[in-house]
């Protein structure tokens, strides 16, 4: 058993690529070994700015001998078959083995020296290396076929035991020589074997193990801060980046002028972090201190005095720029900045940022005025039974008045709407400030500072600051109604506008981050339990095409609503020819997909979401999730599992018999008459059963019992759905379980008497339809 060492030395490898490069090296190397029949469980990898290294332990000195057996023709086969087999294998008749009347060709392959395998594996690994960006260099680059590497490859150390593995790639010959630290030990050092690699490099000021460098930086930086009576602001990203920039990391503490602390701390931290890769520190009160920690790559002879001095100067220059921008920006009111937004194109098809701001302001106001945001305080997130405010959702005649819940504590609805509109109108103004021009990451945050400085209502300032939130999973979700209104309006506008002009994300392409926007909307809606229907908004924006302006958003009207619910695209186009081209439905589907992704992490089954979405017409996501959760709880019970089995059996029979599916929209209270669902079921077998009362031909007791159970369960389930009490709807369905099981036990559907058969099919169709009032169980897996 022998250890193998490989070091690929190059000019400085970008820090951000080093971790993946180690993984790729281990993976490619193991794959090359596996091709030769060698396996090793003990591969360690290292990366520094100048080298990528691998140690594979306990490799055998040769691969095992292999006996390969190929099956040939039967001994009784015609001679041509045998001749063909001999040609293919290159063997003679005498060399074949006969067994059970069949010829076999047996080839014994001797083991290969591992060193030979390695000599082939090294160039193969280098040639196939998947650097995110690679380059050509030097004399060899006269052709574009020359070797590509992340930066020029300078040397290869390849030692199997103590012996060099002889190989060469692009003129670089493998050997035992490498170099130490660029400045501390620039000369050649000779490595003996894998066992002395790490130690020899360490003696030459190279800490080859990235984890050790990270630990050094982490510990030393904290200790420096502590010694200065401060606390380091920990930042693992910075630890890794600095470890990727150094072979001999030496953290050093520097200071900057107190006067810069008048600049918002986020600005200082960002400047220090992004531009200079410095850590920042806090004082005992938790406030940002005038200290930073940089990480040098040398042990300087003066203890780092000159290095600190130089770094302090660079940071001071950066901070004085930032301070200048901040102070200049403070002199200009945000309204004045916002007026410049008409110069910035939001998107070539969608006008300027000023246009967007106007839409967002109207939408934010509407969300508050309709009580969708701020209309009712969020109920407890733990209950699965939703009693929604229904504000802005219910339709005339549906028997539900919009709740006039007292508006947000201390503010009338009108006042809240004013705040939301004000915040929305100023929210993008910081895009034209000097600071955001310099640091685009600070958008929102700076607007919040500037708004507070010019005396805006604190909720307006907070909404400007936070309206981009949540940015991805794990980010804070806004809860203050003013922020929620602006955040939702901004993201909804972006989504609806891009979908309206047909610019949807495809595959990996999502240049306008619409997936993230949709996720943000979902998180906000769910966390705040908002009842917001997406479709009316889509139509509102679309209507601009007809009227040339945005009126107040309005709810869907009867026939359009109906066509939407049933996904009757043809009818939709007739009713509203210029405003809908399927893009609205595409947006709903887009949300459904995002919802599945988002809910997967919360442990919600995607097939259950599908089962509810498949009913069509649901664009209130809170209601949808309530239904999905109730469904998930239900199918987890024995009743649920058995009902699902019974349903599938019924559905299969109906499918085989060609009984068409019914459509029962998921949207509660949709059918308008308030009395539950209007039957849209086609007769089970048209013609044959016309006028036949199914129960009158019920000859078996189990049949009659199922009929009776359906009589009770159907209205109970429909009523519960209309009340949005989905647990009660599941409970109503659960009553069907025993009668269905008994029915399948005792009754044969395919009775020779056509009337009996039709009546039984009709019963099954009723079962299917009753189940579909809750969800399309055919989408449920298992």
């Amino acid at each position, binding site marked *: 058993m022998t250890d193998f060492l490989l070091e690929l030395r190059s000019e400085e490898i970008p820090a951000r690529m080093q971790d993946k490069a180690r993984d790729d090296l281990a993976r490619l190397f193991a794959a090359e070994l596996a091709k030769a029949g060698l396996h090793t469980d003990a591969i360690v990898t290292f990366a520094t700015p100048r080298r990528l290294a691998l140690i594979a332990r306990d490799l055998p000195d040769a691969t095992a001998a292999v006996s390969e057996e190929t099956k040939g023709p039967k001994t009784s086969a015609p001679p041509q078959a045998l001749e063909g087999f001999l040609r293919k294998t290159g063997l003679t008749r005498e060399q074949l083995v006969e067994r059970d009347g069949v010829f076999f060709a047996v080839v014994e392959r001797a083991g290969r020296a591992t060193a030979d395998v390695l000599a082939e594996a090294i160039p193969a690994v280098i040639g196939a290396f998947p650097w995110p960006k690679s*380059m050509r260099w030097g*004399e060899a680059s006269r052709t574009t076929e020359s070797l590509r590497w992340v930066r020029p490859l300078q040397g290869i150390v390849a030692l199997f035991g103590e012996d060099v593995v002889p190989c060469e790639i692009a003129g670089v010959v493998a050997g035992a020589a490498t170099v130490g630290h660029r400045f501390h030990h620039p000369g050649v050092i000779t490595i003996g074997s894998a066992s002395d690699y790490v130690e020899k490099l360490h003696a030459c000021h190279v800490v080859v193990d990235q984890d050790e460098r990270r630990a050094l930086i982490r510990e030393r930086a904290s200790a420096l801060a502590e010694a200065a009576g401060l606390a380091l602001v920990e930042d693992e990203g910075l630890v890794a980046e600095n470890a990727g920039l150094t072979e001999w990391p030496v953290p050093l503490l520097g200071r900057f002028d107190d006067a810069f602390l008048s600049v918002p701390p986020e600005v200082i931290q960002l400047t220090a972090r992004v531009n200079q890769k410095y850590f920042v520190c806090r004082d005992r009160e938790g406030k940002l201190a005038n200290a930073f920690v940089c990480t040098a790559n040398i042990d300087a002879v003066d203890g780092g005095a000159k290095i600190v001095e130089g770094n302090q100067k660079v940071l001071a220059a950066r901070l004085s720029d930032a301070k*200048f921008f901040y102070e200049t920006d403070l002199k200009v009111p945000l309204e004045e900045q916002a007026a410049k937004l008409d110069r910035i194109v939001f998107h070539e098809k969608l006008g300027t940022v000023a246009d967007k701001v106007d839409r967002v302001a109207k939408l934010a106001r509407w969300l508050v005025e309709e009580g969708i945001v701020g209309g009712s305080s969020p109920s407890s997130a733990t209950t699965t039974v939703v009693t929604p405010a229904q504000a802005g959702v219910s339709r005339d005649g549906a028997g539900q008045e919009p709740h006039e819940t007292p508006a947000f504590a201390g503010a009338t609805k009108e006042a809240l709407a004013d705040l939301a509109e004000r915040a929305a109108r100023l929210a993008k103004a910081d895009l034209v400030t000097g600071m955001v021009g310099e640091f685009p990451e600070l958008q929102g945050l700076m607007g919040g500072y500037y708004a507070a400085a010019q005396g805006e209502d604190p909720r307006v300032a907070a909404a400007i600051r936070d309206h981009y939130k949540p940015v991805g999973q794990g980010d804070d979700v806004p809860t203050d109604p003013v922020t929620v209104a602006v955040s939702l309006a901004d993201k909804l506008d972006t989504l609806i506008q891009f979908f309206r002009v047909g610019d949807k994300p495809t595959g990996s392409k999502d240049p306008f981050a619409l997936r993230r926007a949709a996720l943000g909307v979902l998180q906000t809606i769910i966390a705040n339990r908002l009842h917001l229907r997406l479709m009316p908004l889509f139509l509102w924006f679309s209507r601009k095409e007809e009227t040339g302006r945005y009126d107040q958003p309005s709810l869907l009207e009867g026939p359009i609503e109906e066509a939407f619910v049933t996904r009757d695209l043809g009818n939709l186009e007739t009713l509203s020819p210029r405003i809908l081209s399927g893009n609205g439905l595409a947006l709903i589907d887009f949300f459904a997909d995002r919802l599945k992704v988002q809910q997967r992490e919360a442990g919600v089954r995607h097939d259950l979401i599908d089962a509810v979405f498949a009913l069509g017409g649901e664009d209130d996501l809170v209601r949808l999730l309530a239904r999905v959760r109730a469904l998930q709880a239900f199918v987890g019970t024995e009743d649920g599992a058995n009902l699902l089995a019974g349903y599938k059996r019924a559905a299969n029979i109906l499918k085989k018999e060609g009984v068409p599916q019914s459509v029962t929209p998921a949207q509660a209270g949709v059918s308008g008459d308030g009395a539950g669902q209007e039957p849209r079921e086609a007769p089970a077998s048209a013609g044959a059963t016309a006028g036949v009362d199914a129960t009158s031909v019920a000859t078996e007791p189990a049949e009659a019992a199922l009929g009776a159970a359906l009589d009770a369960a159907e209205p109970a389930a429909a009523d519960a759905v209309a009340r949005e009490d989905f647990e009660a709807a599941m409970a109503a369905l659960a009553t069907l379980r025993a009668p269905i099981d008994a029915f399948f036990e005792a009754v044969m559907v395919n009775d020779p008497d056509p009337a009996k058969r039709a009546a039984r099919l009709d019963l099954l169709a009723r079962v299917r339809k009753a189940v579909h009032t809750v969800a399309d169980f055919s989408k449920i897996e298992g």
Partner: protein
Amino acid sequence: MAASHPSAPAPGEPLSFQRMILTLHDYWSAHGCLILQPYDMEMGAGTFHPATTLRALGPNPWNAAFVQPCRRPTDGRYGENPNRLQHYYQYQVILKPSPPDLQELYLGSLAAIGIDFTRHDIRFVEDDWESPTLGAWGLGWEVWCDGMEVTQFTYFQQMGGFDCKPVAGELTYGLERLALYLQNKDSVYDLAFNDAQGNQPQMTYGDVFLENERQMSAWNFEVADTERLFDLFRKATAECESCLEAKLPIPAYEQAIKASHVFNLLQARGVISVAERQAYMGRVRDLAKGACAAWMEKNGWAA
């Protein structure tokens, strides 16, 4: 070398601005570079110099070093900011094909101008260079000295949309930054431009350029006649096109440089909207790429 010059500073004294340039000239001359003079046109970066752009194309070896004044009208601060200038100098080295010891050669030049690697922290920080205007990109680093970016170090991969065969290594030193660093000054205007010599007193960078910054900032931002600038842009692009038709890539390239600078002036005057900006840049890019293509064709080089 340097020590034999009559005006050489005392050992340990930092180099003046001009002495630093002369030292770099000596160093790169000793390493086989042609020492060229600045191109006599306004341009935004040393890379625009035809000795870089055009010579990066084709198979012929090319080693040259030169100072190139750079004009970035929007960076003007009327002489009031200690670090920002609308006119400053880059030191440009191009070595083609890139030699195997390019990093060592570069570090040698830093040592030559007085940077002590036992006291200063030199690092190569990833920086991929791309010039949409020139249809060019390369991989390399910004070189940091104690946290300050002092050089752009690039292996050109493409120029004018053509693969570089072979690849050239390009070093672009920010001369004022290096000098600020070497001389330990906080303001560019306080830099020692020269060393006092006989009757010639020591002059500062400000003595030479402060008034220039004030007046040029005022012109760039306030005075330049935008109608005439638009007209200049149109004329330069038209001229470039007729040069391309006449199969004269070098004059065509000059007109592309001119158009690029006029565009920068228009930007400083704030008369180009965000939407139009892309269109103007695209126009300049097409001209520059056209000139590169014509240069390839004229020399009979295959893409």
